[in-house]
């Protein structure tokens, strides 16, 4: 008896008082989390309202028709017709998406099927590096390599800046995203499908292109749509190579403007109606990103649905679907075609049996070999570009790298990136101090405190997704006006930091929420069964297990903050050499690169880019390692 009831009296005495306390803190915690959640909704609402409030009257002043279809953009005569830049954005985006998706999808197929297994890991790593390269670095690569190349080799009479250069750069920028999403989609296709095709006598390329790729087309489509969003919102890299003439795009080599480049290029000097016309342009960009995001979510929901159906209904396993389709082929081609309509992901029957019977088989096989070669070419292009960017930057940069350049005092004649390093660090500090607590709190509220079936959570997730899809230049414009002019801060680290915080917030929420949702329910139940409160269960049992997800999200956010330049151009100003000061303007790593590039200090630009790329690579590697470590600890 005596050993059995250790501490019982203590427990009993403390109970009622403690319970009341617990209820109160529980309620406080819940409310705090709720407020954080509402903040993200509020941020989205603010941006939308602000865009509409300042942009719609401008459109009315200019005249909607004149704004949308006018071809002159001239501030002295107050003529603001967006059509050339609008068409420019669409033209460049279309071209870049076609090239980028082609390169990306073929590369993914190569990695999935034709690459030697031991090279897959390193190549994927390399592609992750490509994905982490900041857009301003792509910009200087475009400016210093692609533009001269076009000039020298393709058309001697034009400058080299323009549609082609921008599209090439953009396509390389979107390729990594396309590759990783497509590769994931391809990997999720059950092996049985591929083997089933081989068993019917298909060649490996034929099986891959006829069976596996079509089955993964949902994921590939989602990747393409996502990359359209990325391309249309990209600012700095495009701005540096597009040329900037406000003309309707016609030829491939023509120097034109895009909406993003227009905003980034002019917002700093614009005022009055001019600025508002740029905000109206921001509305257009926002609408495009909304539509693209909507399409993306629809596609993804469909893909998810298909896969969840597949895993839920056991008797509809891929193996059986395959078997079904095979048995149909025996019955005859006509019926096989019918079954294809019902199950578009498996069209074995049609392809093979029709082929054999019509004796086109050989020609078809050659076609698939050509596709195989193309996939190797796609991967080759990706890697060649990655290598040439890295080699170019390193070669140009190394000679300018010195102790003084990194850590010495800044002067105009002998610049250093010390102010930029400090500036970037300060921006990371401000933005993460704001975004990490709010983001984690919102994610915890959404995954732990909200009913998983409620409508509200659906809308919340949608608003987070929407916030994530807004092009960064729109955030920049928002920060520029709200903090710079309405609050009267001008260019400031604080304004820039808050703007960046809002920009990285959705990513943090999403990644953290994913981490929390992946914590098995049995741990929650185990804790509740011991009489632990909601708050204690959440923060002592669930959140620690999601630590790796949370950490990844923070590190990704750091990567975005140091890479960002478009937002900073509008919110931080660009004052090379200025040391960080909360309410003052300044510079950052990415801004310094842009500055050096525009001042024809190529060596210094490349040297700063080398440092930035190294930083981003280290951070990304660190994130992967850390996530591995943490997940091993909890599993």
């Amino acid at each position, binding site marked *: 008896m005596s*050993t*059995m*009831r*250790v*501490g*019982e009296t*203590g*427990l009993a005495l*403390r*109970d009622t008082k*403690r*319970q009341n306390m*617990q209820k109160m803190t529980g309620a406080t915690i819940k409310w705090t989390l709720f407020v954080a959640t509402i903040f993200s909704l509020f941020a989205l609402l603010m941006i939308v309202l602000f865009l509409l409030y300042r942009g719609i009257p401008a459109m009315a002043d200019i005249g909607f028709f004149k704004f949308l279809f006018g071809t002159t953009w001239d501030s002295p005569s107050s003529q603001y017709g967006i059509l050339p830049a609008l068409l420019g954005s669409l033209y460049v985006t279309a071209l870049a998406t076609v090239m980028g998706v082609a390169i990306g999808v073929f590369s993914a197929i190569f990695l999935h099927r034709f690459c030697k297994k031991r090279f897959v890991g390193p190549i994927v790593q390399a592609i992750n590096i490509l994905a982490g390269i900041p857009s301003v670095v792509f910009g200087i690569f475009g400016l210093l390599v692609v533009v001269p190349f076009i000039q020298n080799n393709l058309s001697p009479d034009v400058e080299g800046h323009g549609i082609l250069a921008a599209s090439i750069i953009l396509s390389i920028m979107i390729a990594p995203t396309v590759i990783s999403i497509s590769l994931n989609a391809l990997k999720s296709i059950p092996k049985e499908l591929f083997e089933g095709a081989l068993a019917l006598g298909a060649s490996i390329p034929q099986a891959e292109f006829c069976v596996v790729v079509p089955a993964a087309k949902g994921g590939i489509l989602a990747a393409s749509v996502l990359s359209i969003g990325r391309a249309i919102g990209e600012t700095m890299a495009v701005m540096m190579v597009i040329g900037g003439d406000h003309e309707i795009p016609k030829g491939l080599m023509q120097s034109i403007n895009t909406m993003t480049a227009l905003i980034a290029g002019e917002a700093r000097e614009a005022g009055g109606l001019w600025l508002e016309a740029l905000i109206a342009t921001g509305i257009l960009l926002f609408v495009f990103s909304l539509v693209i995001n909507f399409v993306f979510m629809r596609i993804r929901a469909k893909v998810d649905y298909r896969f969840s159906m597949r895993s839920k209904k056991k008797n509809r396993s891929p193996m059986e679907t395959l078997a079904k389709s095979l048995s149909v082929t025996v019955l005859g081609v006509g019926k096989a075609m019918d079954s294809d309509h019902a199950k578009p992901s498996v069209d074995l029957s049609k392809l093979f049996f029709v082929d054999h019977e019509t004796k086109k088989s050989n020609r078809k096989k050659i076609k698939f070999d050509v596709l195989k070669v193309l996939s190797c070419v796609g991967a080759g292009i990706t890697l060649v570009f990655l290598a040439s960017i890295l080699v170019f930057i390193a070669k140009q940069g190394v000679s300018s790298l010195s102790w003084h350049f990194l850590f010495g005092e800044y002067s105009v004649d002998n610049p250093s990136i010390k102010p930029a390093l400090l500036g970037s660090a300060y921006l990371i500090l401000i933005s993460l101090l704001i975004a990490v607590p709010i983001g984690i709190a919102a994610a915890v509220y959404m995954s732990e405190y909200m*009913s*998983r*079936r409620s409508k509200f959570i659906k809308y919340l997730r949608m608003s987070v997704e929407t916030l994530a899809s807004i092009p960064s230049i729109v955030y920049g414009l928002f920060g520029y006006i709200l903090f710079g002019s309405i609050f009267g801060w001008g260019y400031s680290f604080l304004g820039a930091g808050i703007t960046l915080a809002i920009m990285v917030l959705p990513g943090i929420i999403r990644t953290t929420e994913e981490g929390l949702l992946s914590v*098995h329910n*049995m*741990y*929650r*139940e*185990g*804790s*509740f*069964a*011991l*009489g*632990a*409160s909601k708050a*204690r269960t959440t923060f*002592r*049992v669930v959140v*620690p*297990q999601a630590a790796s997800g949370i950490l990844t999200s923070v590190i990704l956010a750091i990567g975005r903050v140091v890479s960002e330049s478009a937002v900073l151009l509008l919110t931080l100003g660009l004052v090379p050499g200025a040391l960080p000061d909360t309410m003052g303007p300044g510079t950052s790593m990415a801004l310094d690169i842009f500055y050096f590039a525009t001042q024809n200090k190529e060596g210094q630009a490349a040297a700063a880019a080398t440092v930035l790329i190294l930083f981003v690579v280290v951070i990304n590697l660190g994130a992967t390692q850390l996530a591995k470590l943490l997940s091993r*600890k*909890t*599993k």
Partner: protein
Amino acid sequence: MRTRGYIEKFMEENKCITIKNLNLYYGDNHALKNINMDIFKNKITAFIGPSGCGKSTLLRCLNRMNDLIETCRIEGNIEVEGFASQIYDKSIDVNALRKSVGMVFQKPNVFPMSIFDNIAFGPRTHGIKKKPELQAIVEDSLTKAGIWNEVKDNLKKSALALSGGQQQRICIARALAVQPEILLMDEPTSALDPISTGIIEDLCDQLKKNYSIVIVTHNMQQALRIADRTAFFLLGEMIEESKTVDLFNRPQTEQCERYITGKFG
């Protein structure tokens, strides 16, 4: 007739849970149909029945774990000894209820922390902070769960490094550490090998001196070995409940007989 009345009365004083007219719905699925039964003090009660008949559901009603399931709707009363009103009443503190009605799950769900922290999690939840006090509770609970000798030298080690059977005993120790009166176990040995199963069965036998135990099992031999009373469920209804030996030797209903002789799917 007369004796029987006396026995009933005697039994009544030894009840720790009384379930009255309990109906439970998962959305439209009527998962428990008008359950009436008593659980007795310092006895092991086994729930048996085919898969999906509602054993786990009923068990989870007893410490209100079903509150966590959104579609779940409950009608009826459950009275637990020591609580002034029935447990679904608004005045009941769920956490206090769960403290006195502990639960052990089918799959060992040790938290990813050290063995010590696993056991101390409950006491800390209920306000015990002092290290010596915690140490005493940890040692005591681990001893009662029959695993103290195996782990006493590495209490700082992650509980996940233990074997499945050891983890399950850690879970039992963790449940005991909050000093419950009643212990609910949902197929606690279904993920374990025969040796670990035997250890846990012996453990239950010892624990019933101080606790009342409700155990869900698919293993009829197990029910026969350890349970004092057994309840048979079918399609959400409680068909039959009596002393284990009686239920297995002289089942009163045809369904129960068919089940225990293995004629049911």
